[in-house]
């Protein structure tokens, strides 16, 4: 039975994926898409969806897994936002060549240059010309309905194109709306199982999709033929929407939705959720007798050329609203496309309204003002920016208001959760390093805690996958300027920025033995995005993407051993530390500092960071948990100096791991058997460390 529920756009998408019986879901969390990855993990953990979930180490791999799964014959879904889409770009570009009918939901969010969590289309616009079908939806219901249709469209043998469903981050992804969820059987009838004609599968066929070498016709001809697919797609889109309407009773207008356009003299062109506010502006103006109208572009690729020409033919003046700028043209991308389309048709004035970047709200008032500009029919200016300055927050503390303020390197008043141990570790670090340190910050909780300005040393936002590479750049500069013995190029990374997405650049910097200080603070999951599994998450731990359900019982794999992996790079200094053991960790930070300033190579510090929010313990227990991690052997304290391993803290007898596990909610589902297994692991590991300590040098240091 179909049912109504009140849900976010992200939940609507996840429900659509479930109904579409998607088989492979490679996915990586990023705000504001994250909860899609969490809902899907939950469905699978509970046995509600029978699919392979791949916790990739980054978006580049997420899209690569998606392509691999799709060309070998699976129905695939993935989803991302912002930086994630940008990081995926190379693989996004390759999917069309494979004619892989992947469906990807993008919860739109600004992509850096300047970072913001807010929604705009700077993320998707660079991806729109690669050969994907590109939809923008206005509501959560439309998101779900479109997702189901998209599999039909993408997989249609006349089309076979990857498809992207754009949904405004926050406005839809996290807003609750009433949504009708169709019943499974009806969807199954509408959307049969995916059976591709060509697949990479030597058991079935020797012919398979590939992207090299180019076809004999040449790539110009290929591009022309590829455009023909989009022409086919336009027909298929209408066909399938009609069929959907006949079965489910809902339709949205195919390529474009027209609102009060029949006799309109002044019209706006919009996409996505802003259209709702724009329609209310149209309603108000209509009451006043002003002939306003609106055209909402649903399908941006293929661009509905004919529809735009047809429906806008009688309009005198058109305003195109863009939530991104094609820098260097002083115009938005939708404007550029649409104006080019309308050129040569009937005479009309066309304006560009640029607004809503970085999540700034485009209000009904704004749309009314846009119509006012249209009504003036002024030909002297074509582009208008509707700007919304960020409201000033006046509760800031300045250094002069606290004792010794000017001398401090770290201030109170950061925005981390109560009980978060990041500022404790950062304080130890700064107290030891002093002020001549420059931090590369891949995105993480610390970035959020500190970004309001609580650090009085330089720190800049690096890309998630490239923390160590940014620091290499600053180090090399200081080196040629002969100040590398005075300034420390450091990376302050979370476990995600170390174990997973950040691993490649870290490993390469270690192999080149750059004299940088890499500090991994390990809270054993992606906490900034809301507790998703990482390569550091221990066996058995609950995270939102390794939930505990009928089938899954927390994370099923052991964590990677980063310090020992780093030792395989034969770098001069490696150490683990914990906030509860202040002197131990400060001594190690001091040794790391010496290593780097003497330019002996890369120093790697691995610091435990208990997280009350993500590990589910009381905020007052952060230090207690850290202490127990050390005392139970879950977090051994040791260092490796030029290959010589030394355990720096040896409890006379390790406490049982149960003492550590039982005070954390993330382990509360563990059975005695699992706890025994963990205990066994810890015993073995501890003994291994003691054995390694006996060696003069770890053998691989040669």
């Amino acid at each position: 039975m179909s049912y109504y529920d009140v849900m976010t756009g992200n939940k609507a998408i996840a429900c659509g994926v479930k109904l579409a019986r998607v088989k492979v879901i490679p996915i990586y969390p990023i705000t504001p898409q994250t909860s899609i990855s969490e809902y899907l993990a939950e469905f699978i953990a509970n046995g509600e969806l029978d699919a392979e979930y791949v916790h990739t180490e980054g978006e580049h791999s997420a899209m690569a897994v998606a392509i691999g799964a799709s060309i070998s014959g699976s129905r695939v879904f993935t989803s991302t936002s912002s930086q994630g889409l940008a990081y995926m770009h190379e693989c996004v570009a390759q999917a069309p060549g494979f004619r892989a009918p992947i469906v990807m939901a993008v919860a739109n969010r600004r992509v850096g240059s300047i970072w913001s969590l807010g929604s705009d289309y700077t993320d998707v616009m660079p991806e729109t010309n690669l050969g994907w079908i590109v939809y923008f939806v206005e509501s959560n219901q439309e998101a779900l309905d479109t997702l189901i249709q998209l599999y039909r469209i993408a997989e249609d043998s006349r089309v076979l194109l990857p498809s992207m469903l754009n949904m405004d981050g926050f406005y839809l992804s996290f807003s609750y709306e009433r949504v009708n969820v169709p019943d499974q059987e009806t969807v199954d009838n509408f959307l049969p199982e995916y059976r591709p004609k060509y697949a990479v599968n030597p058991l079935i066929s020797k012919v398979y999709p590939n992207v090299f070498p180019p076809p004999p016709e040449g790539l110009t001809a290929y591009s022309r033929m590829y455009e023909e697919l989009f022409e086919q797609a336009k027909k298929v889109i209408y066909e399938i929407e009609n069929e959907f309407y006949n079965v489910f009773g809902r339709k949205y207008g195919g390529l474009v939705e027209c609102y009060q356009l029949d006799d309109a003299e002044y019209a706006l062109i919009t996409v996505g959720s802003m259209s709702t506010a724009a329609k209310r502006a149209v309603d108000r103006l209509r009451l006043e007798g002003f002939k306003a109208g609106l055209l909402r572009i649903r399908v941006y690729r293929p661009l509905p050329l004919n529809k735009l020409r047809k429906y806008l033919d009688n309009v005198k003046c058109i305003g195109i609203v863009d939530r991104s700028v094609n820098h260097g043209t002083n115009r938005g991308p939708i404007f550029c496309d649409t104006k080019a389309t309308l050129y040569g048709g009937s005479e009309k004035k066309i304006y560009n309204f640029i607004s809503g970047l970085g999540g700034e709200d485009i209000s009904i008032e704004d749309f009314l003002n846009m119509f006012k500009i249209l009504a003036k029919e002024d030909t002297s200016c074509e582009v208008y920016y509707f700007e919304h300055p960020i409201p000033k927050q006046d509760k800031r503390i300045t250094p002069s208001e606290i004792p010794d303020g000017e001398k401090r390197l770290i201030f109170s008043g950061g925005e981390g959760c109560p009980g978060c141990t990041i500022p404790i570790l950062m304080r130890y670090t700064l107290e030891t390093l002093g002020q001549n340190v420059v931090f590369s910050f891949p995105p993480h909780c610390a970035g959020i805690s500190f970004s309001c300005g609580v650090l009085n040393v330089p720190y800049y936002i690096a890309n998630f996958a490239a923390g160590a590479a940014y620091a290499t750049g600053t180090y090399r500069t200081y080196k040629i300027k002969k100040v590398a013995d005075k300034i420390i190029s450091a990376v302050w990374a979370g476990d995600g920025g170390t174990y997973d997405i950040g691993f490649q650049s870290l490993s390469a910097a270690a192999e080149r033995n750059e004299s940088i200080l890499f500090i991994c603070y390990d809270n054993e999951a992606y906490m900034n995005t809301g507790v998703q599994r990482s390569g550091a998450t221990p066996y058995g731990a609950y995270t939102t993407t390794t939930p505990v359900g009928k089938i899954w019982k927390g994370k099923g794999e052991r964590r990677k051993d980063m310090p020992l992996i780093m030792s395989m790079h034969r770098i001069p200094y490696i150490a683990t530390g914990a906030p509860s053991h202040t002197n131990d960790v400060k001594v190690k930070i001091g040794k790391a500092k010496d290593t780097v300033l003497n330019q002996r190579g890369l120093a790697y510090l691995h610091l435990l960071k208990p997280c009350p929010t993500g590990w589910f313990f009381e905020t007052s227990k952060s230090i207690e948990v850290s202490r127990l991690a050390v005392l139970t052997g879950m977090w051994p304290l040791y260092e490796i100096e030029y290959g010589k391993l030394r355990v720096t803290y040896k409890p006379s007898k390790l406490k049982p791991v149960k003492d550590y596990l039982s005070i954390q909610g993330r382990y509360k589902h563990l059975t005695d058997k699992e706890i025994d297994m963990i205990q066994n692991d810890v015993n073995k590991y501890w003994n291994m460390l003691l054995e390694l300590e006996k060696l003069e040098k770890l053998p691989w240091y040669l």
Partner: protein
Amino acid sequence: MAEKESKAFVLGGLNVGGWYVGDWRTQKPIIDYGKCVKCWICENFCPEIAITKSENGPQIDLRFCKGCGICANECPVKAIEMVEEFRR
């Protein structure tokens, strides 16, 4: 002639300082100075750097204390008690 610098340049290091995060608190630490032995453990572990040393013992800056309770949990002589904040 000095050129006017474009504002399209986001600079770090200009706004050093933090927020008054004390209003996040639901409970606040009260120190019994009679019990305190001035070991400064609380000062070392306070994540908010809200505790400073003074002759009388630790001073808590309630403008920044988020009420996590770490100080009370770590104090070896239990000189700190967390009490509910009552606010209208």
